[in-house]
């Protein structure tokens, strides 16, 4: 099966399923993202069901078995932990609204969402931007991306790689991977 590209916003509300029992133990409340490293740190959680209350436990990405189109999978409920790490709190992790710019300082837009490559090693592969000179688009995250103040930086040539849909983005990511080899 082809690994899916998923919007971060689409992960909100996704069930967290214990693979050892087949029970849903939580729902994703928010995605915690380290902008400097372009990595998913984990998820904050809420109880399953309508109006589910926020849970004290979080799900670190290291404990995730896989992120799929229909569920986030864990091996057992031992994967849920408490965390005092500031980066793992919502205040430390969320960066929607940050500016996205090229290394040469050209502003591409504001960060609206992250695009995640699902599967057993989920990771952020692109940003969804808006309010920029080219309108809405999907920008590959790139190897040179980093954080400067409140901006996310991508290589200059990535301005030409902006796509408008996930299918186009998938093709562009494949090309980037080929270029790296």
């Amino acid at each position: 099966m082809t690994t899916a590209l998923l919007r971060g916003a689409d992960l909100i509300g996704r069930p967290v399923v214990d693979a050892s029992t087949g029970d849903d133990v939580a729902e994703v409340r928010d995605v915690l993202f380290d902008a400097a490293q372009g990595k998913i740190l984990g998820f904050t959680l809420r109880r399953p069901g309508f109006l589910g209350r926020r849970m004290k436990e979080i799900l670190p990405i290291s404990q995730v078995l896989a992120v799929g189109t229909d569920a986030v999978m864990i091996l057992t409920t031992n994967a849920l932990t408490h965390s005092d790490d500031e980066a793992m709190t919502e205040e430390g992790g969320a960066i929607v609204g940050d500016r996205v710019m090229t290394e040469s300082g050209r502003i591409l837009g504001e960060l609206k969402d992250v695009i995640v490559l699902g599967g057993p090693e989920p990771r952020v592969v692109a940003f969804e931007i808006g309010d920029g000179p080219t309108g809405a688009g999907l920008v590959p995250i790139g190897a040179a991306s980093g954080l400067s103040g409140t901006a996310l930086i991508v290589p200059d040539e990535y301005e030409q790689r902006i796509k408008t849909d996930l299918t186009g983005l998938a093709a562009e990511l494949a090309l980037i991977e080929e270029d790296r080899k």
Partner: protein
Amino acid sequence: MTRLSELIGQDAVALETAVTTGKVKGIRVRQNRITHVELSKVTIPVVAVRSFDGDVLTYDGAEIVPVESVNTSDPRQLLILDLDGNRLGNIEDLEIAADGTIEAIVTKGEEIAGTRLRTIGSFAAICETTHD
């Protein structure tokens, strides 16, 4: 071989009394095997069941210890997920061998080999991922 759709609602007969004690209401599955069967008034371990292949479910009533805290269900229409968190379909039926082994999961589009089944829970049936 029988199907879950035939098993659910089947009469259950205790062998030591030859009395019909109720009907089959649900099952519990771990790995690809039935571990418990819920009857009208009691849940019994699979070791008490003589066979799943008959017209009625016969069981050794004298041997069982009623299990009160085991979660059982009729899993038809339950979501099927693989270990990557992707949907494979919904359970339309199960093919069950005489000893309670799940031979196959029947969905609308295909059959999933029972050997891929890891568990059936309250939210989903979990199957091993295939990499085509």
